[in-house]
């Protein structure tokens, strides 16, 4: 038996008691950490809302009549659900796509540019990513809710 697997050695302590609700909010996350976790969150949101995305593709592209129905769902609503709820879901998707897209380009840039893999560039590009995705989301939200 190798030395590493010796049962006589005392077990090293493991710390697996990080509580997502009480411990995580006390961490100060750096911009790169926010971009990273939001990349995952936005990906999972788009995965779960995929049937809604395809429903939008279906109704908007199938015929003139379904296109009118598509518009009515967002402007008037469907059943007991008012239109602005659909707009909010669409806005969540818009943010998710913009964030995932920008953070993905950041990944590709760091994969292909060795000098980009530094702490400084990581922080700078993370702030840039958040500024682009949140900024464009605000611009498109204003358009979606008819402010201009």
């Amino acid at each position, binding site marked *: 038996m190798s030395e590493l697997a010796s049962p006589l050695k005392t077990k090293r302590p493991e710390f697996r008691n990080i509580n997502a609700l009480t411990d995580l909010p006390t961490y100060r996350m750096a911009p790169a950490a926010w971009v990273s976790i939001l990349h995952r969150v936005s990906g*999972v949101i788009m995965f779960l809302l995929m049937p809604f995305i395809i429903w939008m*593709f279906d109704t908007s592209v199938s015929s003139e009549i379904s296109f009118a129905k598509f518009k009515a769902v967002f402007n008037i609503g469907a059943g007991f659900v008012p239109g602005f709820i659909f707009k909010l879901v669409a806005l969540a998707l818009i943010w998710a796509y913009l964030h995932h897209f920008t953070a993905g380009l950041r990944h*590709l840039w760091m994969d292909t540019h060795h000098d980009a893999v530094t702490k400084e560039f990581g922080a700078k590009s993370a702030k840039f990513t958040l500024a682009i995705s949140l900024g464009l989301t605000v611009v498109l939200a204003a358009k979606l809710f008819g402010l201009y």
Partner: protein
Amino acid sequence: MSVKYGSKRVVVGAHYGLRDWLAQRVTAGIMALFTVAVLAQLLIAKGPIGYDLWAGIFAAQWMKIVTFSVIIALLYHVWVGMRDVLMDYVTAHVGLRLLLQIFTIVWLVGCAGWAIQVLWRL
């Protein structure tokens, strides 16, 4: 392929990590280009976006084939991503992880089927 490190440890692997890493980036690039190409057509159009403009983008057979490829790229991309998420967070129960991975595959294949049907019904 196996590499011997030092005198004891033999490192082996299927190298699927590299394959999926590369596939995730290639599929991302395909989807990014597609997004820009479709958005550009909407942005350069004058006036409100009507049904004819929107459906016209997907009317040609070659565009349907391109869109089909993007759907398949999306399928693979999301599978790699969701599998990574499940491997990172669902660690306590391997059975639950397998169940969620099966759900992911069924969900994705179902969605892709629907999208492809919409595409060629046009």
